């Protein structure tokens, strides 16, 4: 039996602090991904049988490039937040947990940077 007050025990433990930002960011990216994801999936279905040059021309369209960037960033952010929760819930060992958490974040940033660079390269290349 601790003599600390209930308030003293929970102060600074998180959920009323950074936890809300995490929760809210996951919902915002989820809402953004509903139209973006549907647009992307059905665009891909339409592009499935076209050749390389039609695909790069499609990516280079200003509207498509803009939507692709929005999709890529919200999707990777959403994925990073989601995997973070899975790791926090199921990986209990200290070192493995830290490596998994930092590793997934690094991988997501790597994919975001590579993806942005690729979209810009295709767009600029198509105009040159």
């Amino acid at each position, binding site marked *: 039996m601790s003599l600390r007050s209930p308030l003293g025990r929970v102060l600074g433990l998180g959920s009323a602090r950074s936890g809300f930002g995490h929760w809210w960011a996951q*919902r915002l990216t989820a809402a953004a991904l509903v139209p973006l994801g549907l647009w992307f999936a059905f665009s891909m*279905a339409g592009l499935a*049988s076209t050749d390389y040059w039609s695909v790069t021309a499609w990516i280079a369209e200003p509207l498509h490039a803009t939507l692709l960037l929005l999709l890529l960033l919200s999707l990777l952010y959403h994925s990073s937040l989601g995997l973070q929760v899975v790791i926090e819930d199921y990986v209990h060992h200290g070192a493995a947990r830290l490596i998994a958490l930092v590793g997934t974040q690094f991988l997501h940033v790597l994919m975001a940077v590579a993806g942005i660079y690729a979209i810009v390269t295709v767009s600029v290349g198509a105009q040159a």
Partner: protein
Amino acid sequence: MAFGGVVLSLWLVAAAAGPDSYLRIVDWLGTPIGMILLVGWSFSFFYHLANGIRHLFWDAGMGFALDRARTSGIAVVVAATIMTVMFWVIALSGGGA
């Protein structure tokens, strides 16, 4: 779902890297294993999307009653199946990947 994000990035990078790299990715996705993965991803994607909308309604405090939750659960599977079939009808009607 997360591995689908990896493939999205690879696809974009391959498109930027030139026709040869792009063809290699598309060829790999066209193999039987690639196609099984794509069918699995497309269904997982649409299921995740539909169930995500269900969760957003729950977050707003709607549809919590047990019978409504059960009905929406069935609706999610039905919607995901319809979207997956639509996706593949469009993808394959263009002549195949």
